[in-house]
């Protein structure tokens, strides 16, 4: 049986010893690994696609009613099986069945051209149910991601650009709470906190999905067109404000407590955000990078880092300057960052924090 941390009995906290020991033991017996999770998720996607393909080649798709019935069966039996599954292989099969069911229901709704005000809420509800009634990482993660994808698709289908702005803003706010107020979240939603990791990663990916597919930033041919002038500002102002607030909030944690160093870091980030005000993906992914690094969330850091590189590349690519002018802008920006490195290096050496 797993041991309790030594400080806990003397801490004065009231706790359920048996439950803590049981969960610690369970984690010990069934270890989690990010790389294996990726492998299983790839497997789930492959097998679900193959299972749906079987329904298609059997000609079942010609009857949306049967597709719906099979979908409901797959979803419910997959969820029940997942809750009872005691081994990884059964869990993998259960989730594959559930995803196949979800896909079949979506197909049936699409075939019927069901009213969006009925179809999308049902799909969103199915996603929420799969999060609330699940265990482990994979299903709650897929549920969170599908929930946000359904809502984003719904808003896109209804052609509501301002609602999209509001929704993406809310996603940023949610992420801010999940990273900067983790303690409050854990204390306020003790039961739901078992899904903290999957919800967090699902939200990080949903924001990237929103930016790169559901808004005009930045995949040509996939992204929708700008609905009105200065549409970027509706995204970039909230995300820039949140990014600035995050740097302000985290500056003590970064070691920039007061005086010139704090002012310097806030001024630099302020200038950077103003310069990229027409590129919302930059402020948004920079915010993600800061939050994920603060939360020691390795997967999030990698995703945010790659997205930021892409956003910066697109920012320069889309600039309406000549190649020569772009080259000077790039060299100038490079020199500014190199100067930042030199100054920071000197600061760290003077304050002896390198050691």
């Amino acid at each position, binding site marked *: 049986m797993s041991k309790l941390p030594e400080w806990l009995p003397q801490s004065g906290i009231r706790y359920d010893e048996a439950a803590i020991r049981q969960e610690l033991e369970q*984690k010990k*017996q069934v270890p989690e690994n990010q790389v*294996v999770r990726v492998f299983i998720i790839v497997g789930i996607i492959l097998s679900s696609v193959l299972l749906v393909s079987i329904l298609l080649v059997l000609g079942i798709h010609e009857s949306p009613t049967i597709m719906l019935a099979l979908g409901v069966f797959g979803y419910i039996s997959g969820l029940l099986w997942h809750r009872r599954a005691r081994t990884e292989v059964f869990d993998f099969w259960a989730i594959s069945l559930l995803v196949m069911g979800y896909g079949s229901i979506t197909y049936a709704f699409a075939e019927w051209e069901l009213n969006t005000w009925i179809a999308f809420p049902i799909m969103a509800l199915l996603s929420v149910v799969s999060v609330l009634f699940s265990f482990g990482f994979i299903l709650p993660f897929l549920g969170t991601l599908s929930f946000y994808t359904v809502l984003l698709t719904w808003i896109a289908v209804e052609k509501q650009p301002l609602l999209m702005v509001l929704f993406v803003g809310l996603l940023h706010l949610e992420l801010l709470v999940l990273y900067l107020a983790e303690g409050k979240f854990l204390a306020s939603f003790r039961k739901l906190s078992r899904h903290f990791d999957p919800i967090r990663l699902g939200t990080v990916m949903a924001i990237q999905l929103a930016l790169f597919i559901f808004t005009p930033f930045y995949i040509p041919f996939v992204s929708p067109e700008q609905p009105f002038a200065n549409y970027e500002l509706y995204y970039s102002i909230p995300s820039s404000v949140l990014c600035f607030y995050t740097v302000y909030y985290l500056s003590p944690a970064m070691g920039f407590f007061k005086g010139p160093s704090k002012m310097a870091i806030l001024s630099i980030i302020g200038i950077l955000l103003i310069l990229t005000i027409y590129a919302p993906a930059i402020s948004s992914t920079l915010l993600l990078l800061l939050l994920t690094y603060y939360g020691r969330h390795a997967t999030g850091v990698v995703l945010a880092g790659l997205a930021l590189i892409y956003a910066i590349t697109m920012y320069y690519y889309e600039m309406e300057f000549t190649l020569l002018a772009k080259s000077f802008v790039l060299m100038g920006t490079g020199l500014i960052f190199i100067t930042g490195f030199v100054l920071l290096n000197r600061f760290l050496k003077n304050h002896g924090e390198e050691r």
Partner: protein
Amino acid sequence: MNREQIHIIARHSDWSSEDIEKALQKKVYPSPRSWQLFIKWACLAIGLSFFVAGIVFFFASNWQHLHKFTKLGILIGAIIIVVSFSLYPKLEPLIRKILLTVASVLTGVLFAVFGQVYQTGANAYEMFLAWMALTMVWVIVAKFPVLWLLYIVLGNITWFTYVAQGGSGYIYDLRFEINAILNFFIFVLATKKPALFIEDRKIPNWFLFIIAIPAVAMYVAALINALATTEVVLPLARSLGIGLVIGSYLYDYGMKRKSILYHVLVGLSIVLVGMLLIGRFVDNYANFGLYFNSIYVLVSVGAMSIFFLRLVKKWRHE
């Protein structure tokens, strides 16, 4: 105490949000030092990348006002300055290595400008090969994984441009097999002689994993190529043989290093190869191939995930 334990205790207790936050600050979140180092190195990496990209754009813009000697002179001057700085002993070793990486990129730009100015008529692979030859000494001296990575990417580009422009028909047919072997050879070299790639430190896992990816991807590409031919037996046996050797070595290395990354990479390739073989050889009469493929994926991924998790558990207990 780690984040997982904090979450478990918080879930089954009345631990206050302030105290949970304090525990997270103390045990999980990065220290001011980590932040400052993160920002410092990010500034250098972004700064140098932008600066080098700016130089590349400058020459790509083909500024007509510049005389050809000026163009070449600027580049040669920049390379000399960067290399001279890298020789300055008071600079941190990491900065000196980064400067050599910058010099290597600038060498490529120099060749491109040279080819453009004098219209040498050389094939693209000759330029890449010359680039490789000229920067080889820096790569060996620097022992910097990022520079090695750049060099390996360059090697792969050289290979494929050579195959497309100058290689014989036989070499063209074997392009993926040879490339898989070349990448695998570098992986083996990095695991057997890590001192060639890095100084005074264990070779980083990310570096090895990135080199392992093209080796595996290329044997899968070789297999796809083999399955598309009419004389399928020999090419298939060849690519499967190469895959077996690479897969076994990666598996063995993963076991030694206790890193599941390599097992998962090999596992993914096994799933993919199996699906391709079923797709090619199982008769799709009455969609039998599709059913068989579904069963194969469900069984193989399930079995492999159990195996991987058991390995992780075993290593953690050790």
